[in-house]
């Protein structure tokens, strides 16, 4: 009898031990999943008048991208988003919002350059150039990067003295940090992060983005 008792007691301890192991694994999985995929909220703010929109500005399908001009993944997604515009430009509004990450020293400056170009009606032209030349300005000192953006502005026939002043305009700084604040609320924790009709997308590769947009535009066109 005592022997049996000892055995069942040991069995209970072993079960408890492995249940602890299992619980820890589940906790680790849940923590990693929630940090990388969900974010808090997960709903992007609705389209505003001063948003930068490409494609059909009045379309029902709205794709919002939170992006950082200096992030390599964002530059890689740039051509994907451009291709989307060719395919879905008539049925989708494509929105760019700023989310410059602190580890990218020239990202905020680049965002300011795009905004300053926007004041002269050339936001998207500047946006394209900044991404296409990402490697050329990422590593520059902020002074040199500033000069580089002025040169890009020249290429676009932007009035450069006004452009330089606008880049330092507090209103532009505020505009960028507003995007950033809203991004944090919407659960942006990596760049680029995409929201389709307000809902955060979980993408595993470039092709997923087109798939999601195709499904959404198909859903609205057949409604």
């Amino acid at each position, binding site marked *: 009898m005592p022997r049996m008792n000892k055995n069942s007691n040991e069995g209970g301890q072993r079960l408890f031990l492995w249940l602890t192991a299992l619980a820890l694994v589940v906790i680790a999985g849940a923590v*990693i999943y929630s940090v990388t*995929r969900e974010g808090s909220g997960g709903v992007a703010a609705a389209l505003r008048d001063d948003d930068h929109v490409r494609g059909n500005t009045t379309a029902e399908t709205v794709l919002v991208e939170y992006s950082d001009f200096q992030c*390599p993944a964002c530059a890689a997604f740039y051509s994907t988003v451009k291709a989307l515009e060719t395919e879905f430009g008539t049925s989708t509004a494509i929105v760019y919002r700023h989310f410059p990450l602190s*580890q990218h020293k020239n990202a905020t400056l680049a965002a300011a350059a795009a905004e300053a170009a926007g004041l002269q009606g050339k936001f998207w032209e500047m946006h394209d150039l900044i991404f296409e030349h990402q490697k050329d300005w990422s590593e520059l000192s902020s002074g040199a990067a500033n000069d580089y953006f002025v040169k890009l502005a020249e290429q676009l026939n932007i009035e450069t003295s006004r452009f330089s002043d606008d880049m330092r305009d507090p209103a532009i700084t505020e505009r960028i940090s507003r995007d950033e604040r809203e991004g944090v609320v919407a659960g942006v924790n990596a760049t680029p992060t995409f929201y389709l009709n307000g809902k955060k997308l*979980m993408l595993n590769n470039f092709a997923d983005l087109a798939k999601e947009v195709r499904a959404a535009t198909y859903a609205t066109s057949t409604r």
Partner: protein
Amino acid sequence: MRRPMQRVLAKSFVLLSFIGILDAGYITMEAFTGGTVVCPLVGGCNEVLQSPYAQIFGYPVALYGLIFYFSIFILSFLYLDRGNKYVFTVLTFLPALGFLFTLWFLYLQAFVIKAYCFYCLISAGLSTILFALALWASVQIARNKTPLQPSD
């Protein structure tokens, strides 16, 4: 046969490897989903994680880290369950392997990439502690095996 020192070591390994799983797991997930990580304190995450050294045989280094910590985690539980001395031997050798990789990655960050990443440094700290504990345990065991004064 309780071997209290070994059990304490296995329990510390559980705790350390759990933190390691969280750390490496986060970077592995971000590597596979193509996001840019939020990068606290030392900057440099992208320089490090998107450098050619962040992949070995086409898989992110973080994945190997995850496998490393997970092995230690499971083996520690296995030891706590069975008290098998061979499992314990593996537990004292694995951290040495991890520490060698840590030295290599620290060298790459300091001298080749010239940038540090927060999550990599956390992992470097963890694997260094694991190695130190394993070394300490091995020394203790070796001492106990050859007692200075023969008892009786």
